[in-house]
């Protein structure tokens, strides 16, 4: 089912959480709403679900205006961050709940068959008789997903679905959710503040800031071509230098970067830690190493430019560098934005 948000607004008391957001989600698409806390992403998701009403604008499900349809009749599957499983019901009863309360009457055998099918889908065969308190967090979230899918929702909405799980389980569930989405092809929107999760999982990432969409696109588009410093910084670690552009070249603290098309004037330069090189002789940004963080795949060097700017970059695990060393940082690749005065 295609979902369309048209200039949707939400205000809580005096705080405007969502400022006129318009967004189209294609049928069968897996979309991530990504943003820091307070960016309005959960509010948008809850409005699509009908758990909050929009103060302005419209939400369309296909061609139907769903703005005023109550959550009960909207036909969405909602998965909560903290699972929200009914603690007094078994896993099977939880999954079957939507079918038992449905206006469409189903007999017990039919419900049991569907529950068994869903348990198989979420790989929890044999756990139907357990209570939510007796299974792990990852299993609970899978039950929550099965429960949401049981009512054949038009759209699946997940609110920080892996936020309460530890890193390993989170990784596993991410891959698993992707598989399920591939299998069922249901339109899915999920909310996350974890950029890695959004980039790994989604067909399209919608980046939000203070209740507005700042950029949307495929993971490749947003990573390769961030529209502004906020998106760039939010998607991953970045070093920032201030410099001056002149005639398609940028100078900053001794480093020179080609920047065709950038108007002359003060600029901000952003570079990922992997795009920085370290050498003992110039040219480049003169800096001294303050600390080294050893990681499985690389060594992260924390340094300070002579101008005082902190710098972070990665070198090969074999590279010998020690704190206190001085040298020069060169930029292999960088993004340049004009600096607004």
């Amino acid at each position, binding site marked *: 089912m295609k979902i369309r948000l048209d200039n949707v607004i939400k205000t809580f008391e005096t705080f405007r959480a969502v400022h006129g957001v318009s967004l189209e989600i294609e049928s069968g698409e897996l979309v991530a709403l990504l943003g820091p806390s307070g960016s309005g992403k959960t509010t948008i998701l809850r409005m699509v679900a009908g758990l909050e009403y929009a103060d302005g604008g419209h939400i369309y499900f296909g061609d139907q205006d769903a703005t005023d349809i109550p959550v009960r009749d909207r036909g969405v599957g909602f998965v909560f961050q903290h699972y*929200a499983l009914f603690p007094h019901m078994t896993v099977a009863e939880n999954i079957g709940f939507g079918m038992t309360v449905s206006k469409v009457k189903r007999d017990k055998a039919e419900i049991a068959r569907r529950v068994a099918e869903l348990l198989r889908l979420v790989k929890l065969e044999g756990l139907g008789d357990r209570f939510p308190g007796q299974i792990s967090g990852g299993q609970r979230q899978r039950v929550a997903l099965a429960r949401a899918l049981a009512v054949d929702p038009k759209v699946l909405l997940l609110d920080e679905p892996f936020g309460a799980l530890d890193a390993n389980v989170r990784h596993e569930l991410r891959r698993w959710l992707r598989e399920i989405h591939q299998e069922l092809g249901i339109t899915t929107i999920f909310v996350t503040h974890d950029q890695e999760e959004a980039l790994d999982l989604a067909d399209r990432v919608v980046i939000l800031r203070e209740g507005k969409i700042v950029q949307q696109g495929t993971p490749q588009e947003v990573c390769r071509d961030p529209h502004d410093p906020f998106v760039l910084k939010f998607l991953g670690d970045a070093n920032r230098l201030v410099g001056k552009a002149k005639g398609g070249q940028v100078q900053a603290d001794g480093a020179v970067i080609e920047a065709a098309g950038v108007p002359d004037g003060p600029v901000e330069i952003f570079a990922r830690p992997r795009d920085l090189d370290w050498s003992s002789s110039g040219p480049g940004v003169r800096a001294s190493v303050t600390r080294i963080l050893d990681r499985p795949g690389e060594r992260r060097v924390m340094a300070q430019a002579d101008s005082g700017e902190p710098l972070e970059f990665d070198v090969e695990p074999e590279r010998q560098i020690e704190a206190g060393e001085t040298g020069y940082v060169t930029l292999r690749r960088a993004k340049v934005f004009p600096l607004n005065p």
Partner: protein
Amino acid sequence: MSIISSRKKPPRVGDGPVFRRMLIGVVLLLGALLILAPLVIIGVEAFKQGWQVYLATLNHPDTRHAIMMTVVTALIAVPINTAFGVAAAWAITKFDFRGKRLLLVIIEIPFSVSPIVAGVAYLFVYGLQGYFGPLLEAYEIKILFALPGIVLASMFVTAPFVARELIPLMQAQGRDLEEAATSLGASGWRTFFSVTLPNVKWALLYGVVLCNARVMGEFGAVSVVSGNIRGQTNTLPLHIELLYHDYQAAGAFASASILALLAVFTIIAKVALERQGAGRRSRLATQSATSTGTSV
């Protein structure tokens, strides 16, 4: 040497054997004198003149009537206050509205106001010289010095009990469960009965037990509005006082023994419910669900 040993076991305030034993002894003694002894006296005095007299006093029409009054009052007041408590707790924990804090405070008022104040207030509202007195009299509706007045006064005093048990629990449980149920297509009533109620049932029962004990034992508010008409508007606590003033010690103690018995049953029910609450599978799941909820 002494420094080393004190490091092994950090010294606590007053953690000496003499002090500890003295403290425990004093508490036990006071507990026995202030709480246990009076209860024992009730039992002893009630049966002082033997079983026959005990049963005879209880079988006295006035006593029987007083017991009945108390039971009827409880049968009316407790269900109404239970419904009120559930509704108030639901409203406060599941919705946001103006005056929510005020409602919380209002519910608490009966805890902080002396019951006799409530009684007098009812007197001013429904009494002959009160606001609605003449109107009620014109239609021959008797509220004061009759069962309705007793029920109203009892309800005022016990209004907070159920709500106070439910609100913290329902607050801890949040709204996720209800939202999940509605998103799955459940109606409001269905959500309440299949999702909300099962998760608060022990707390609810606990509140009901405490509410009932208080309704049956209420003296102050009821004594103002009932008029103490023997065999007509006397509840058990009022009847006990009356018997005592009539120098019928055996009767007073026999009647008191019934209320004491009620207290014992209440305590047993209370402990049993607490055990249920702590040991039950469903509650365990609730606790783990809420604890994972809050730990992140």
